[in-house]
């Protein structure tokens, strides 16, 4: 079985993000980029399945500009077997990404897609769900535990009411949550091998996908600066402030 793992190049989670002066987006020039942390968890899970004998091949796919290949290389250095790079603009929308992934699925025929539940830049949390809908595959989102037994997935999902235990046939789309695993560091032998692993280059035209923008960003602005807190003397005063000032109760 092949596992497809989409990986996205985003601003490194340690970087303090700044809004561009013209408010058209966030500053990307000279900013450290890295693999979306949720995608790292997805790569880790796919490699663990392969190590456990549940999969034969892990394919990392990234959709974005040339530099997205660095993100694929990171996945290869963690242990993925090969990569696919689809040349596209940085701000390709979730629906277009889902369509592109669907086209790749048609070519590669993986038994499983494991991906991050969202990327830490846009926080859309849409691509996995859209991909499942487009392919007609079942989806298991927000996974914090996954097992394959007799060709069936046993999954624990993190939902608002607690932990939901589900089973799911394959092929399927899994989106992973933070607590699923702790991604490994790239090993030195795998870093040295990563360069020799193939990365296929595919264009949007090859896939026949229309990735044109449907959304228009009007303005991006910094969140308002947080004001200093105050100390209250009594519980009644606290309740009064929460009710009338903070308006949270």
């Amino acid at each position, binding site marked *: 079985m092949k596992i497809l793992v989409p990986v996205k190049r985003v601003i490194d989670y340690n970087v303090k993000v700044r809004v561009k002066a013209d408010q058209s987006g966030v500053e990307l020039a000279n900013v450290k980029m890295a693999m979306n942390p949720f995608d790292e968890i997805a790569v880790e899970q796919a490699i663990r399945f392969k190590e456990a004998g549940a999969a034969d091949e892990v394919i990392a796919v990234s959709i974005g500009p040339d530099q997205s290949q*660095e993100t694929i290389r990171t996945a290869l250095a963690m242990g993925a077997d090969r990569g696919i790079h689809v040349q596209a603009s940085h701000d390709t929308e979730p629906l277009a990404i889902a369509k592109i992934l669907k086209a790749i699925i048609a070519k590669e025929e993986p038994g499983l897609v494991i991906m991050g539940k969202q990327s830490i830049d846009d926080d859309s949390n849409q691509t996995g769900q859209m991909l499942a809908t487009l392919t007609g595959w079942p989806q298991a989102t927000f996974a914090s535990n996954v097992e394959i037994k007799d060709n069936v997935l046993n999954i624990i999902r993190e939902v608002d009411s607690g932990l939901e235990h589900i089973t799911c046939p394959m092929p399927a789309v899994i989106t992973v949550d933070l607590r699923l695993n702790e991604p*490994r560091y790239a090993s*030195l032998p795998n870093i040295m091998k990563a360069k020799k692993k193939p990365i296929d280059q595919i264009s949007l035209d090859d896939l026949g996908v229309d990735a044109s923008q449907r959304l228009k960003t009007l303005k991006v602005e910094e969140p308002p600066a947080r004001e200093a807190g105050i100390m209250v003397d009594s519980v009644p005063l606290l309740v009064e402030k929460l009710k009338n000032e903070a308006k949270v109760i």
Partner: protein
Amino acid sequence: MHFGLSEEQNMIVDTVRGFVEKEIYPHENKVEELGYVPQEIADDIKSKVLNMGFYAPNFPEEVGGGGLNHLEFALLERELGRGSMALTHFWGRPQNILMACEGEQIERYLTPAIKGERMDALAMTEPDAGSDIRSMKTFAKKDGSDWIINGTKHFISGAAHADFVIVFIATGEDDTPKGPKKRITCFLVDRGHPGFEIKPGYKSLSHRGYDNMILTFDDCRIPNSQVLGEVDGGFEVMNTWLYATRITVATMSVGRARRVFDYALQYAVDRKQFGQQIGKFQGVSFKLADMITEIDAADWLTLASAWRLDEGLEANREIASAKVYASEVLARVTDEAIQIHGGMGLMNDLPLERFWRDARVERIWDGTSEIQRHIISRDLLRRLGG
């Protein structure tokens, strides 16, 4: 001329940096407070690094090492330099000099060191023999096919956790026109060997938890098979294998200086006085400009010296320049970072006072700044008959 890193080199840098940030930084305050590294933390770091295949990156692949060249190893150690030395000690990097192992020494020392089963430490300095290494008093006397060693070594870093030491000992003396000159031999001595003891050393200002130890030899009987290299050939193995260790000091100084600089830069933006960010005052902004200029210069000087080794070029002077300059840049950068922070820089709520203390030793160990300047100037003057 090409100044960029390859994809692999970038990944090595990113991986080591990520590891240091996630696995080293969180333990630093505890180590500073305790004055030692708790065993479970040491074991955890070591086992993770072993799993990553990064434990002996400076050794050739043929003997089970990572096969990095000098430049790549300098990049790796630059990132390690950001973290506490007490903790990064467990990122292996056994002494290259173990490549001089022969015969059964390979099975007993080289291979287990590379596999992380046995840790090593290097011992040269003595109470009366610092920069003047040939003046050492620790002496090994031949007795049949054995050697009997007497003497004391001190300031021995890494010996606290060492399973064996690589120790330089006088084995004779030659009369020369310039006076008597000691012959030196390198020995491998196991912890626990009768007559040999590893004792606690001094409390150092720098690198708390990275202990310096005292080694004592009291009629310690060692078979001739424990000689590393040739008898009386200590300087040869030293010059062959320890030539590059000054790059370690230089590149780790650069890494730490970059970490310190990030604190200063951030504070210049966050701290407001007289109604504006202090970074807007020229007194602060020009300091930042000088700091980064010097750090970049030290970085390139160091990487260039490592590159020269890889290219098989003469590098002795360049390595000395990198060592003296990078360690002195670190001193200035830590000092100025505290100046930018004002009183807060002195408090141990921030790690700046620690970086400032840690920086002090870099100008002293592995050859003082004065010894490095001597090497640099001698190299230049000798060419003109000086």
